[in-house]
């Protein structure tokens, strides 16, 4: 388990697997501020002027204690949330003033989310869960099925395609979620504490799969507060009180 057979063919030096794209950064945040609440009493500054650049092919860990703003950052990168101030460029395009239509399209095509609580549809099978982004991308049913099965094969869960989330282990559920995140070939996979609900063996499995995807050239951002998880990444961004306080290679942890 854990080794992703389809990827072994391409596995190699992480550095060379990254396509040396210099068409500008994939993600660029400039002075991003996110404030919740409007009154002075309930006003919470979740992000307080974040500048961040992530290039295609990077695997970045965002680390920090709870309340440091790392999840908010991930939501903004994933277009689930909008900055109160500042600018966010995805592939060089400003995102902050896009309409609902465009944001939905970006979430569908450019972003793949993996959540701590898995967030699978409980009444749908693993296969149907993986198909979901393709449904909203209006991919025809046969192709949808084929691609979803491919994605399940990549996380080594072909044999569980007809199972519902309640019939799967925590690790298996998170692998279904990863399959769902990658099925639409997004520009970036955003994982929010992906191992937070898993035992250490499953955590290891999940992180190895993400690492394999990265070796394939997939850009990945992982939010975590665990050092062990961050070690799978290439670069670590440290956050505290809504600000970035460090940006170091994972080796220096």
């Amino acid at each position, binding site marked *: 388990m854990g080794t992703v057979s389809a990827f072994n063919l391409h596995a190699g030096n992480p550095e060379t697997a990254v396509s040396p794209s210099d068409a500008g950064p994939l993600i660029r945040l400039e002075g991003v501020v996110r404030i919740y609440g409007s009154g002075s009493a309930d006003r919470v500054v979740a992000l307080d002027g974040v500048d961040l650049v992530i290039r295609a092919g990077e695997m970045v860990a965002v680390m920090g204690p709870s309340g440091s703003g790392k999840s908010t950052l991930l*939501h903004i990168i*994933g277009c*689930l*949330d909008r900055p109160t101030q500042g600018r966010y460029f995805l592939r060089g395009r400003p995102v902050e003033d896009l309409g*609902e*239509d465009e944001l*939905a*399209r*970006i*979430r*569908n*095509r450019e*972003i793949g*989310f993996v*959540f701590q609580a898995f*967030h*699978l*549809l409980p*009444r749908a099978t693993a296969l149907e869960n993986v198909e*979901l*982004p393709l*449904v*909203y*991308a*209006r991919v*025809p049913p046969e192709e949808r099925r084929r691609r979803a099965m491919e994605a399940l094969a990549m996380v080594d869960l072909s044999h569980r395609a007809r199972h519902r989330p309640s019939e799967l282990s925590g690790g298996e559920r998170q692998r279904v979620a990863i399959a*769902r995140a990658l099925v*639409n070939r997004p520009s970036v996979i955003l994982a929010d504490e992906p191992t937070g609900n898993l035992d250490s063996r499953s955590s290891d499995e999940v992180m190895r799969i993400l690492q394999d995807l990265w070796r394939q050239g997939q850009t990945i951002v992982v939010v975590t507060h665990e050092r062990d998880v961050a070690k799978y990444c290439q670069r670590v961004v440290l956050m505290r009180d809504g600000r970035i306080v460090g940006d170091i290679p994972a080796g220096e942890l």
Partner: protein
Amino acid sequence: MGMGREALRIALRVIRQYPLRTAFIVVTNMTAVLALIVLVVIMQSLQAKVRELFSSQGADILYLTRRPPVLRVTDIRKYESYPPISTAEVEFLRRQLRWAEAVVPATYDPVDVTFQGRSVRAAVQGRSADYLVVENLPLYLGRHFTPDEDAHRRRVVVLGWGVYRELFQGRDPLRQWVWIGRQAYRVVGVVRERGTLLGSDLDTVVWVPLQAWRGVRPDVDYVILRPKSGRENDLMEEVRFWLRLKRQLRPTQEDNFGLLTTEGFLDILRNATRALSRALIGVVGLGVLVGGIVLMNILLMAVAERTQEIGIRKAVGAHPSAIAAQFLWEAIILASLGGLAGVGVGLGISYLVSRALSLPWAFPFWVAGLGLALTGISGVLFGYYPARRAARLDPVQALHYEHG
């Protein structure tokens, strides 16, 4: 539209997942359609029955009555002063009318009819002997009475089916004497079964010659007139003219008698139906409103219950309109299921009621269509707000929403 199909699929699955909730919505949404169908079908059946009855006697029959039909409560007192139609007036009309094929004076009295100790309260119909020109009364046994018998005041009687069955119970009634009130009449014929109209029995009836009956009733309740072919309006004008003349009414005075055609009678029925229709719109409107409000609230609960699911769908790229479509379809399907159930149950009930009142039962497809359209529209209207609410949920908050 692949998206619409997906929304439809989700909606269907949800509906199957919560059978109790579905049943509740179906029941609350079917009442409007149910009321619509039952009332419309019965009103139509009534009209059909009345038309059938009239047409069996010829559609162009004219009725001259002592009082016009009561359309308003205030009419009742006004009509009280109208004089009865006298025999002299009937004779006068018979002489004057050029466009009448037949002029048949008629009386109606509920009287006990007795044979060998058995007794039935029957509608005694006094008629002049040419009554068969204006009424369609096929015989089961014997014959009708003749002009000669009428002229000579012979006490002969033709029995309705119900009276025959009740008094004779299958025995031969011909040439037997029955008591009608205090007079004895000899049975000459029996009319075939005619059924009921609006709950009134058309078979507990006997027909007697008017001349013989005149000892009991000197005046006339109404006159049945048959116009010469195509002369219905001419005859009507003529009757009005001569009767007003005979009664010496001034031009400013209203008619103090009633003049009714089959069409006129159907018009009255239609007016009554129209009044009923207005009430019906109220009932149906209320039903739609109640059903719709129940639907809306249950959907709002569903939106709350499925907040996290909505968040997930949004996170993987569902457009707000796709989320809205999902809930809108659910609303439309649920409401339409109610409509469908209403059509089904409405058909059943209207059929049973029609049978109980022995009315013809015909199913008007337009009512079913109208009912279904109504519920579909109500689904859109009352599903709109929950659907919009679902579509506008903030994805981050929705994802982290814990229900219950």
